């Protein structure tokens, strides 16, 4: 895994609240058996109309959104299904961080496993980001800080082990595999299983 440390980028803002994983990647694209190439279907029904033509008003379709790797969204981003296809699609499209005031549990955990930082900030910084699309922002995982262009910053929380894995480029499965001895003795000492 590629280590993730600092992300510096202009932002794209999708202000809606409760952006669910069905919006991020509609279910009809889940028949894939691979995890790559999903970026082309990211926000498919928002980005494209019924004839497959881009909707010019959707933030990702504006020219200034090209190349941005930080997405700012309304509260409760990533709610709904557990599909890891959602962070796969966001990452494949080029996003490396999602900033909101609230991020749904399963999405957050899936994102962290795929090099996409879920960044939860307070209401005032969030409002500023929502009001200033295209702002040049820094997300520093090491310092757990989001920096705004005017020098203000906010700290954010990230689960310690996930952060460590991302900074070092370590795959958590290796850590779990390393617990094989503990797992075996757990199985042995358990007299009864439900």
């Amino acid at each position, binding site marked *: 895994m590629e280590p993730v440390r600092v992300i510096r980028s202009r932002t794209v803002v999708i202000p809606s609240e409760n952006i669910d994983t069905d919006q991020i990647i509609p279910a009809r694209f889940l028949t894939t058996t691979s995890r790559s190439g999903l970026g082309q279907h990211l926000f498919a029904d928002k980005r494209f109309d019924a004839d497959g033509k881009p909707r010019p008003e959707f933030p990702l379709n504006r020219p200034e959104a090209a190349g941005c790797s930080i997405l700012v969204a309304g509260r409760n981003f990533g709610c709904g299904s557990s599909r890891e296809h959602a962070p796969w699609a966001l990452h494949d499209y080029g996003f490396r961080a999602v900033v909101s005031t609230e991020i749904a549990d399963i999405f957050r*955990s899936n994102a962290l496993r795929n090099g996409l930082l879920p960044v939860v900030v307070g209401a005032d910084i969030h409002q500023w980001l929502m009001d200033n699309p295209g702002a040049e922002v820094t997300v520093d995982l090491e310092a757990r800080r989001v920096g705004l262009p005017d020098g203000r910053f906010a700290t954010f929380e990230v689960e310690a082990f996930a952060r460590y894995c991302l900074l070092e480029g370590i795959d958590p499965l290796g850590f779990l595999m390393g617990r094989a001895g503990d797992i075996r003795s757990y*199985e042995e000492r358990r007299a009864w299983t439900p």
Partner: protein
Amino acid sequence: MTDAQASPQTLFDKVWREHLVCPETAETPAVLYIDLHLVHEVTSPQAFAMLRERRLSVRRPDRTLATVDHSVPTSPASWRDGFAGMDDQARRQVRQLTENCGRHGIRLLGVNSSRRGIVHVIGPELGATRPGMTIVCGDSHTTTHGAFGALAFGIGTTEVGHVLATQCLLQRKPKSLGVEISGTLPEGVTAKDVVLALIGRIGVAGGTGHVIEYFGEAVSAMSMEGRMTLCNMAIEAGARAGMVAPDDVTFEYLAGRPMAPKDAAWDVSLDRWRQLPTDEGAVFDASVSLSADSLEPQVTWGTDPGMVMPVTGRVPDPASPSQARALDYMGMAAGEAIEGRPVQVVFVGSCTNSRISDLRQAAQLLAGRRVARGVRMLVVPGSQQVKRQAEAEGLDRVFAEAGAEWHESGCSLCIAMNGDRAAAGQYVVSTSNRNFEGRQGPGARTLLASPLTAAASAVAGAVADPRPFIARQRRIA
């Protein structure tokens, strides 16, 4: 006595503690042992591919159970023509699951299995879901299994790989949220209405970071199937899991199921299960209470399950730009009555409401009545077992005589990835769990409701309150 015995614990605390392989520390999450791993075709291929790349095997195939549900066609016509309409990718997914299960020795209830069904319907039905277990699946509605007093939650595909390889997950312990449902449910009001009203109250992120335990008079009085509906939608409140303490209703449901313990093993299990309920004096991190007494049938008006109202109510003024957009998507106006709004499709099915009692309720309401002209009604049983049971009771004939379609089991119109879908702009009264934009087809508009409300709406050809229908039936009887 140890501290653990001295301090009162919640049901969730007990199940969590019992499954700790390694406790959590500041640096690392807990290593949590998983008793049952359910697998389906959509969220598993990439996890099996990861095993293959690393030359890993499945640690406990005996604790893994697979089925196909999401992309399998359910319509009688597609079954007749050998799935002619099924797309190649979906076919490949089903084939890959079959190969992966074969390679790793995992039990698969495949397309032709008589025990196939929606993963969250068959677990309980087979007795694979039991009190005190930890259960995961690459599917957010795994919360359903919490109805048995199991800790059950959805995981992503990477974590599916972790469980396949190690039978464990890295987890931080969530907080607990106690939800008391007091009082008695009035006639015509169901578990679905309770959980919709709850989500309306606490919001779609109200449970984020928490495991819900439902308790109270109305929960104790509920059947296992009602409790499953309640726990199924815990995720729609953002909660990690939903749980109900096991009691005699639970044990009665489980006794004699194919995978439930038998004879002496049953007695041992029963003793252990009886120790699971939350201790007197245990505290939740947060609490909510709701009275069932005055609850009305609920129906959603917007594009998330928290945008919900009593069927007798009026669409509220939008309280945020998101709600305004939702009204726009739904083609509704603030202040309008929801009852009487014409609908084109009615769907009874999904892991929320496709069990035998759900179908019985819908059938009772439809008996002697007809689905309104211009309305397509699909009834999709949750499993082949539910289908057989319904047919044995003659429910399929009630549906057919009323003019509804009777399908093979599967997820179907809940997620619209198997060919069953609604057209853009159509209104669908649906017993499923998500009214997200495009969930039932691009542009389709979903109104979530109970099986009773769905059946009443099918007859009326418009959103309808089931209670007058039930009252009329009573007078005739």
